[in-house]
């Protein structure tokens, strides 16, 4: 029974993760007659546009990490080091950006921070200068760092909290204070948490397709991969080379962060020291801290407020605030595209169900059985984290080319089933983590007790294990669901017809015309609302905000 389930899961992972990715890698290195060649890679570096895209992507990802760190590091330090009320606010700051996909906020940010956006209009009027927040690549960096800085914030807070007070005390006893204490003790001890967060930001930004596309910055790797494959065609090898480069970078960044976390053992002996000593803020420090928090809060709320105003405004052009408010855009969405909301619920619902079913099964196999090779299931499922959405989708187009669906006479890759499976594979690591955590917390003696009382294995799983894991399973379901609901990278490659498109693609489509901006924003607000509610539910279910950063 267990073996059959394990084999079924393995088959699923091979078919919908390993084979598509392998076909991408194969195509990037295959010559015309099937042999190995590096000529496509050489060709890639000979095209100046590709070289430019490559450096742009690296630059944007690196600069986003720097910008996100500037936002996040002070906040993390405040929460851990000082005793003050702002800590609760910072907690909120850590979740708010994550409920809005960056490509939705990007357009609104243009209106707020763009060349003639609200902020620059005010600056121009009162100060006589403007700041090019959104010019070219700056826009991508700005939007991405505001969106992803929580990854650094949350990881860093956890790392700082885990520093034992005795470490600090010993250093102080030995005469280290102030900057030296920070540089020699606090900073190195917090480093692993920071690196984990920063590498995650790097990977997310490097892979993001939606934000550069919405901002019209196509000279980056992810948009180039998308444009090459969709316009030059599925046979174009350059698209695959880009995909391979993206996978390599993702894997390297995640590997490096795992390496740094593993290589140096910072675990301290005693626990319960309760982190660094908390100090009270001096008045001027409090003012500075609150000012910084207020600034970040404004930045974080900007896309939310912006998109809300856009969805309600009649006209917003060259003015600080929109003039005239209307609900028409919501009416347009509900008459024209209610099916998109339904599609999102359907696809993400199925994907999340698959994820928790597979995730719970893998968790059980890993933790409760001695099946040989079982860790490979965990490894493969988790590897999906390192595969950018656009690469997985391109892999589907390649591997399943020409495959027709039975009964529906349409191509598999053009159907919503391919999209749903891509969602399921991409979000599986989230659900898996959640299920693993839930099962780890449950002592095996509970099952043994059930079996001693005469329950069969299957019965004990059904009556004891699953009900006790339910919290974790539900949290995994919600996490998979909401992250899939706002994913655009795979969606935009695999969506073809308007009637089977989910909301994320709908938002993108609307944003392509002037009259569509309002309805697009309205659909965005609806998406954010759905994700917000989902986040709240999952937060209540797990009560562990750190879950988000895994």
């Amino acid at each position, binding site marked *: 029974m267990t073996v059959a389930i394990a084999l079924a899961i393995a088959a699923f992972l091979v078919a919908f993760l390993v084979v598509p990715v392998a076909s991408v890698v194969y195509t990037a290195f295959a010559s015309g007659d099937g042999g190995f060649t590096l000529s496509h890679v050489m060709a890639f570096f000979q095209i100046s546009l590709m070289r430019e895209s490559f450096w742009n992507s690296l630059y944007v990802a690196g600069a986003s990490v720097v910008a996100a760190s500037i936002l996040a590091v002070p906040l993390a330090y405040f929460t851990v080091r000082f005793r003050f009320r702002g800590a609760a606010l910072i907690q909120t700051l850590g979740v708010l950006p994550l409920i809005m996909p960056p490509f939705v906020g990007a357009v609104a940010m243009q209106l707020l921070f763009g*060349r003639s956006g609200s902020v620059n209009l005010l600056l121009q009027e009162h100060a006589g200068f403007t700041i090019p927040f959104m010019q070219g690549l700056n826009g991508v960096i700005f939007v991405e760092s505001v969106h992803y800085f929580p990854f650094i914030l949350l990881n860093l807070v956890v790392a700082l909290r885990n520093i034992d007070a005795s470490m600090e005390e010993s250093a102080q006893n030995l005469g280290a204070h102030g900057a030296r204490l920070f540089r020699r003790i606090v900073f190195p001890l917090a480093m692993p948490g920071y690196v984990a967060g920063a590498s995650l930001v790097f990977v997310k930004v490097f892979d993001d397709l939606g934000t550069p596309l919405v901002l*019209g910055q196509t000279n980056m790797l992810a948009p180039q991969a998308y444009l090459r494959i969709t316009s030059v065609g599925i046979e174009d090898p350059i698209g695959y080379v880009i995909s391979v480069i993206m996978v390599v970078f993702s894997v390297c960044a995640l590997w490096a962060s795992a390496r740094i976390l593993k290589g140096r053992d910072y675990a301290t002996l005693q626990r319960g020291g309760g982190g660094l000593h908390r100090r009270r803020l001096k008045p001027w420090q409090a003012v500075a801290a609150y000012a910084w928090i207020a600034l970040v809060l404004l930045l974080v709320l900007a896309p939310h407020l912006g998109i809300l105003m856009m969805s309600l405004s009649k006209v917003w*052009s060259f003015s600080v605030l929109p003039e005239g408010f209307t609900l028409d855009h919501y009416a347009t969405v509900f008459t024209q595209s209610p099916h998109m909301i339904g599609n999102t619920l359907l696809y993400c619902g199925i994907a999340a169900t698959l994820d928790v079913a597979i995730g719970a099964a893998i968790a059980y196999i890993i933790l409760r059985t001695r099946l040989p090779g079982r860790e490979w299931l965990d490894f493969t499922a988790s590897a999906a984290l390192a595969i950018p959405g656009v690469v997985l989708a391109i892999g589907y187009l390649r591997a399943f080319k020409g495959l027709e669906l039975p009964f529906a006479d349409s191509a598999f890759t053009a159907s919503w089933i391919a999209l749903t499976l891509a969602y399921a594979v991409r979000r599986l690591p989230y659900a898996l983590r959640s299920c693993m955590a839930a099962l780890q917390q449950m002592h095996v003696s509970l099952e043994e007790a059930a079996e001693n009382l005469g329950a069969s294995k299957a019965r004990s799983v059904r009556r004891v294990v699953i009900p006790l894991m339910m919290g974790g399973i539900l949290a995994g379901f919600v996490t998979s669901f909401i992250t899939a609901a706002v994913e655009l990278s795979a969606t935009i490659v695999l969506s073809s017809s308007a009637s089977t498109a989910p909301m994320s693609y709908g938002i993108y489509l609307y944003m392509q015309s002037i009259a569509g901006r309002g309805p697009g924003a309205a659909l965005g607000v609806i998406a954010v609302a759905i994700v917000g509610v989902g986040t709240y539910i999952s937060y209540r279910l797990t009560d562990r905000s750190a879950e988000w950063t895994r």
Partner: protein
Amino acid sequence: MHKNIRAGIAAAATLAMVSSGAMADTVTVVTSFPKELTEAYKKAYEKKYPADKVEILNKGTPAGMAYVREQPAGSRAEIFWASAPDAFEVLAQEKLLAKVDVATGNIPAKVGDYPINDPEGFYRGQALAGYGLMWNTRYMQAHKLPVPKEWVDLTKPVYFGHVATSSPSRSGTTHLTFETILQGEGWDKGWTQILQIAGNSAQITERSFGVPDGVQNGQFGIGLVVDFFGLAAKSSGFPTDFAYPSVTAIVPANIAVVAGAKSPEAAKRFMQYTLSDEGQALLLDPKISRLPVLKETYAKAPKGYPNPFDGSITAKVKFDSDLSQNRYYVVSSLFDQVITFRHKELAAATQAIHEAQKRLGTRASPQLEEAKKLAWTVPVTEQQAKDAELLRTFAAKKGDDAAVKRKTQIEEEWSTRAKANYTRAAELAAAAK
């Protein structure tokens, strides 16, 4: 609970299958047009022919072509509907379009000098589009800019940093505009004008939609846009205005039936509908604002609606579409190499020249003249651009490695030369006395 979930999924799946409609005739439309337009046609057509279903595949023109090409005959989409005439030419050459005969009303053979329908009958003009100037009235007021009337106005120093345009390689209509300037003004003078406009531009946008979008929300003052973007923004209440300059080209946006479509009959029905008076009238919707090809439809248009058939838009240029098609790749690539990828240097040179001109007033300066010549002369002569060898190299298909290599080499040359010229021009202008 599990049973419920399973039943729910089954029901949902069945629902999705039914709604995707295996029974009725489905008209799959591959199009680059925005949602307002496709949604209007889908709704109206399905109302008139309740047995048919319209499925819209929204793709950029090149992506749409690739999509049609990659499907096997017999299960292809029914309709291809987009602006750029050259996309249809390519598809027709690849035998991916079907010749169909649909009866239509009074559609003239030509608009200006441009044939509305494909002479060989593979595709038909469905709407007309002209390029013009769109500006944000508030932006113009805030920066105290005069309203431009002609392309050449945009070369004036006052517009420096306020203009936006896209690149011909990104959008077929942008290509037509610049080709129109080249044909109207001649190769050398035309390029000088284009370089001056580009030098005055704040940005060469990555997508053609980036221009009207930026003007609409006030990021740019003036943009070179297709008429429907300008007209639709104005009628949606944005503080923008639009005008056709006298040197403009009116060209058709086209529709065609794909060869090897799943339901050819339905395809024909849909095409017929878009060309009927009823279908053409949909174009007049303020959110769509396109110009019908059918003369009588203009009777229903609101007052002041531009009409290319009654002389309210004058197209002075005799547009030679063969010439345009022949040098299509050369013009697009030249623009990208000397303008799109070198925009920073070009803008800096342009700014330096404007400043020098201001400083010197009417005093003659050989350095300034030299700077202008360097910055605003294209590194390819008309004679060179006509060279059959060069044209062949640029039109070569992928896989012809030698040609591709040669092309890359030529492009690199153009790009390097342009960069050197712009840098030198900026230095000369700064030192001019």
